[in-house]
């Protein structure tokens, strides 16, 4: 076991981000299996990564470009005119690139699930539509994330968000796990009801044992307004 160096950390970062090739990943996994220190480092990095990913996503303020330009235009004794122009263009290019990445529509995603080419209903029209289902449960769209990976964004971006309802064919979903994990922020307040029911049924049927019982306790209590018909002993068959 050798001490962890910068190269190891770089490899570790690439591994966690899913940027290693298959052979590099296999090699790194073998190293992880044999190197306790590196494994511990990997676990710490993974926890840090999870915490960072769980932070709420925030868009840059709409007037950020103007504010940057205003800063650039401010009199400065250090920068001469040509340098100031380059800096301004650089900042604008950066903002534009960021904006392009954020607003990139989901239909640029790679095609997937080719085998699921069964006939399906026509694509659902893009419309905000009712956000609450007939069952009384909040529709998942209210908590969902969009193809652009932006949630509850403000201003004109919100219209782009609604384009998530651009089809109901599951074959259009991406299959690339690493892309998904990075481009879709975590959400799911309204998923709680489903998760509670999921854990309860697993606890009663699926032998998942200690972990599922712990999860039942870890989830917040179900909404007390649950209809009486739903609040009874599980009718499993």
């Amino acid at each position, binding site marked *: 076991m050798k001490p962890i160096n910068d190269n190891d950390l770089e490899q570790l970062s690439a*591994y966690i981000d*899913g940027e290693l090739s298959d052979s590099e*990943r296999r090699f790194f*996994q073998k190293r*992880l299996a044999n190197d306790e220190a590196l494994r511990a480092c990997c676990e710490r990095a993974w926890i840090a990564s999870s*915490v960072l990913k769980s932070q709420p996503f925030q868009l840059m303020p709409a007037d950020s470009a103007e504010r940057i330009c205003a800063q650039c235009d401010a009199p400065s004794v250090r920068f001469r005119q040509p340098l100031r122009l380059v800096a301004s263009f650089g900042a604008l290019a950066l903002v534009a690139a960021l904006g392009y990445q954020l607003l990139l529509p989901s239909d640029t995603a790679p095609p*997937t699930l080719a085998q*699921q080419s069964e006939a399906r*209903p026509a694509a*659902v029209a893009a*419309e905000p*539509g*009712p956000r*609450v*289902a*007939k069952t*009384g449960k909040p*529709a*998942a*769209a209210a*908590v*969902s994330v*969009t193809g652009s990976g932006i949630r509850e964004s403000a201003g004109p971006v919100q219209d782009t968000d609604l384009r*998530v309802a651009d*089809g*109901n064919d*599951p074959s259009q*979903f991406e*299959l690339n*796990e690493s892309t*998904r994990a990075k481009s879709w922020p*975590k959400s*799911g307040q309204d*998923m709680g009801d489903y998760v509670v*029911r*999921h854990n309860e*049924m*697993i*606890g*009663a*049927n*699926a*032998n*998942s*044992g*200690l*972990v599922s*019982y*712990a*999860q*039942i*306790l*870890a989830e917040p209590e*179900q909404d007390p307004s649950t*209809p009486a*018909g*739903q*609040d*009874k002993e599980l009718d499993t*068959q």
Partner: protein
Amino acid sequence: MTKWRAIGLLLLLTPLSQAHAEPKDWLDSGKDWVQQLWRNDAQQWLERIDTAVLNHNYKGVIVLARGAAVESFTVNHQMNNGVETLRLKTLSGEPRELVKQGGKFQTDAQARKGRFSTISAAEQTIFSQFSHAADNKWYKASLAGKGRVAGRSTQVVDIKAEDKLRYSHRLWLDEETGLPLRVLTLDERGGIVEQVVFTQIAVSPAPQQSKPKRNAGPKTLDNPYKDVKGFKLIAQENRGGSRHYLYSDGLSSVSLYVEPSSAREKAQMKRDAVNGLVLADGKTRYVALGKVPFGTLERFLAAAGGALAD
């Protein structure tokens, strides 16, 4: 020389005469001996789990980490006359408690409402799913070195998924008793999806020793939709118009909810280790969720949608 030949002959005849007296026992023990020779070491470790749970009482503290969420609980597991009682209390967040005894479990929230949940696989212990993992064709078990958890020496066993539709697991089994002290769920890239680990544990033998019942797991029900590779429908219920189907491959579980909805939507959700997909066509909403890759959930939605189209 004659004396040595006589001794040799006697030694040869002794087992033969015993075999003649009890041919079935001899055959069975021979079969066991051959099976032991060919058994996978990992399988032997996994098969110890149920026996370990049934024959030990233990108290301790577990930490459950899922994504960025970390919760801790006290665990009190007691065996009385072959009946398993598990008591879990939260140490973080809201004070809550769950008791599992025999074929039922109840949380304090359920108790306030006067309800409980019946466990269909009552004879299963709280780690039975791993005990049977070596027989599960969708996973492959292998030994993976030694470790130390909660101050106890452990044997590490990998339960690797055979395809990308499910997650893999890594167990740290107590060398002395065989109890699982740490369980990791790993995605296809080896990233940790979830882990539960004992940080403290005190183990003592149960007053009565018993043998685990060999159980094939939950009964499989008729699936109204197309099957997804490796997953069988094991339970279903109907709550207020929302039909809930639970599928399992023995280790991983997926819930599919089918309910009326006027919304049109297609969305993705994530809550700690649980992934979820929603698909609604203006009449019916399908929600698939579970600790499986999104690709698996897509297949469940496609399977349900396919049946709808039929």
